[in-house]
């Protein structure tokens, strides 16, 4: 035990004192925050650019349609010919010219209207101009049908079905995704951690092999102790780095956004899961007080303690499984270029877990795919965490599934670590051999 502790301590110190590790630790948050701020800034710049569209309205309709919108403002041309208007638009550097020809009714005008631009018009401008026309056109149509705008608004009103579980808990349709995002965040964190720090473990093993210190070390400690010490030490360094990242990124982001006066909401509108959630919420009328309150209630009711507990369990077991595979790979090869053939099969289940999670578990957290992948031990650390926010028991993940998932994970953990330790034990003393899977299989029997 004392030796294990010595090894953990050395591996930890060797890692955190490593220059590139230190640089990465402190540079990454700055880079990340810089990128976020840049994106936010660019988005704002993009939004702030106003394009001017000249309107040559020769009809008797659409007189009041053209109020300045978010991206387009309008200039009225009067009493000049289309050719003259085109010339002056080019001369004044306007974005485009909207021509509404004279016609008998609004429908005909709209049908024959043209937007002239230098190049193909940008979608946002086109949409805005279309919307302007469409609103008026609709009003004309309604009037023709004898429907008042008030009546129309009434017809247009949406509807949300109320939902509740059999036990009477109110729920909300955005909540499945919302919960999955919380779990997905945890799952994603696990995957990143495994890939980054598993790689560190592997490189550290290769370094011991190439520097030829390995035989000196294992004449003092058991290879298994060395392997575990390495994995634990490296992951502690990883946890340290992660904490620094999270704390400093949070701090920097807050400071940056405050200083630059950027609305964090801007970022939420970007693509990705945040955007999807946002849409869900706004389309189902977040403005509705009751819905908003429900969302908040749900969030508060999220089993945070439970989530955190299982996050730790799945994290520790999942990470140990994968990093001991990484350690075995490191032991089997002589240099990093030989690792490729072994790495792919390791990363595959991780990627699979993330994709299955995002595409299947989000929409149906308790469907057959979700259940299968949350029990299969190589994907369960990620997929189960995406399901767990909906709770355990009758309304969430059934007890037996959780038990099956955990016990399979535990068994796999023992099995894999045992196998990896065997390969590790033989591999670290093998020099100059390019290993094949067949060779590794033979080592298992030594």
């Amino acid at each position, binding site marked *: 035990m004392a030796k294990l502790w*010595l090894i953990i301590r050395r591996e930890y110190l060797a890692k955190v004192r490593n220059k590139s590790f230190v640089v990465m630790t402190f540079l990454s948050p700055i880079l990340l925050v810089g990128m976020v701020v840049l994106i936010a800034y660019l988005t704002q710049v993009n939004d702030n650019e106003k394009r001017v569209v000249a309107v040559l309205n020769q009809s008797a309709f659409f007189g009041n349609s053209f109020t300045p919108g978010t991206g387009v403002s309008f200039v009225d041309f009067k009493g000049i010919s289309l050719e003259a208007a085109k010339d002056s638009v080019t001369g004044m550097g306007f974005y485009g010219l909207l021509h509404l020809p004279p016609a008998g009714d609004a429908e005909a005008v709209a049908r024959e209207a043209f937007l002239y631009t230098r190049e193909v018009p940008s979608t946002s401008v086109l949409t805005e101009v279309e919307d302007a026309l469409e609103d008026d056109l609709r009003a004309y149509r309604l009037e023709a049908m004898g429907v008042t705008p008030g009546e129309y608004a009434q017809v247009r009103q949406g509807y949300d079905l109320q939902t509740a579980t059999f036990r009477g808990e109110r729920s909300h349709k955005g909540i499945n995704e919302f919960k999955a995002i919380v779990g997905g965040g945890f799952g994603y964190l696990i995957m990143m951690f495994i890939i980054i720090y598993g790689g560190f473990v592997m490189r550290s093993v290769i370094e011991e092999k190439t520097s*030829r210190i390995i*035989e000196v070390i*294992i*004449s003092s*400690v058991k290879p298994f102790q060395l392997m575990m010490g390495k994995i634990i030490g490296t992951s502690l360094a990883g946890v340290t780095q992660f904490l620094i990242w999270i704390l400093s990124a949070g701090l920097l982001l807050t400071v940056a956004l405050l200083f630059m006066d950027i609305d964090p909401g801007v970022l939420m509108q970007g693509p990705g899961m945040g955007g999807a959630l946002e849409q869900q919420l706004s389309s189902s009328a977040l403005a509705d007080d009751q819905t908003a309150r429900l969302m908040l209630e749900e969030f508060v009711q999220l089993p945070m303690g439970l989530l955190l507990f299982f996050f730790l369990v799945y994290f520790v077991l999942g990470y140990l499984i994968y990093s001991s595979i990484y350690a075995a790979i490191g032991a089997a090869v002589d240099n990093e270029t030989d690792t490729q053939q072994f790495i792919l099969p390791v990363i595959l289940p991780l990627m699979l877990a993330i994709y299955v999670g995002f595409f299947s578990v989000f929409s149906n957290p308790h469907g057959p795919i979700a259940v299968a992948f949350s029990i299969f031990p190589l994907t369960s650390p990620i997929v189960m965490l995406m399901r767990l926010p909906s709770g355990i028991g009758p309304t969430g993940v059934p007890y037996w599934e959780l038990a099956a998932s955990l016990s399979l994970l535990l068994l796999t953990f023992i099995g894999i670590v045992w196998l990896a330790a065997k390969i590790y034990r033989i591999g670290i003393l093998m*020099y100059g051999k390019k290993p094949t899977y067949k060779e590794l299989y033979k080592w298992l029997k*030594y």
Partner: protein
Amino acid sequence: MEPVLSVQDLSKQFGTYTALDRVSLDIPRGSIFGLLGPNGAGKTTLIRIINQITYPDSGSIWLDGQPLGPEHIAQIGYLPEERGLYKSMKVGEQALYLAQLKGLSRADAREQLRYWFDKLDIGHWWNKKVQELSKGMAQKIQFVVTVLHRPKLLIFDEPFSGFDPINAALIKDQILELNAQGASIIFSTHRMESVEELCQHIGLIHRSRLILKGRLSAIKKEYRQGKYKVQWEPANREAGLGPLQEALEVSAATFDAEEGIWDFTLKLGDADKAAALQFLSTHGNLAAFSEWIPTAEEIFIRTVQKQEANG
């Protein structure tokens, strides 16, 4: 006296390959034991088993009369042939770490390190990183780390490779000193002249089997062939070795015309020795007469070749 280490009937297979085949040997207490053998004979496997790095399929090892176990790790010091250090770690810190892995407390390790660093005059390396050191310098650190915890059994695998002659001599003196202080030493090497110099006992492994073992002096005696090196100035210069060759088996004869001295090898049975000496001294001037004793190298080569011939 009970041997410090006793290996009995040790066998080890790697898949279908037999690395060790029923090897038995004793390392006498306080001796320097030369473990010899061609490349790939199984020496390293045997050494790794003694260090509990790998485990035998059958057979047993006894250290001080007890079956070898994890508690003995601290009593063995091992300098492997494939050796290195963490490149980016500082010398002192690294030596402390390795010493602590051998079970020394931090304070003890520091004290011992100071002693050895002073002794080898390398104290100023303490805060250097290993990558700044030359190969020979790193070897010295490795040597120190091997002997630091004062093990009763030391195992050196090619300890002099990578050292210049001066440092090799320095390390050799340290090994002899440790031996004089009571440490038993297993010494694995291809350099036969150092075997000759250092070892009292040898064991020769060939193709996974121990084919020769015992006291080096006894083995040499056994390998004598009744050959004698002679330098002789015959009284009758004209006749040369002629009369001698009629009576005795003479080989490898050369003649130094300036001195008038013949240099040759005589093969004699024990009973013929007195007569031959008599003849040589009456018929000429005997300048030198000594029995030819095989070197460790010759024994090594002959034994291996004989084994190969026998299949």
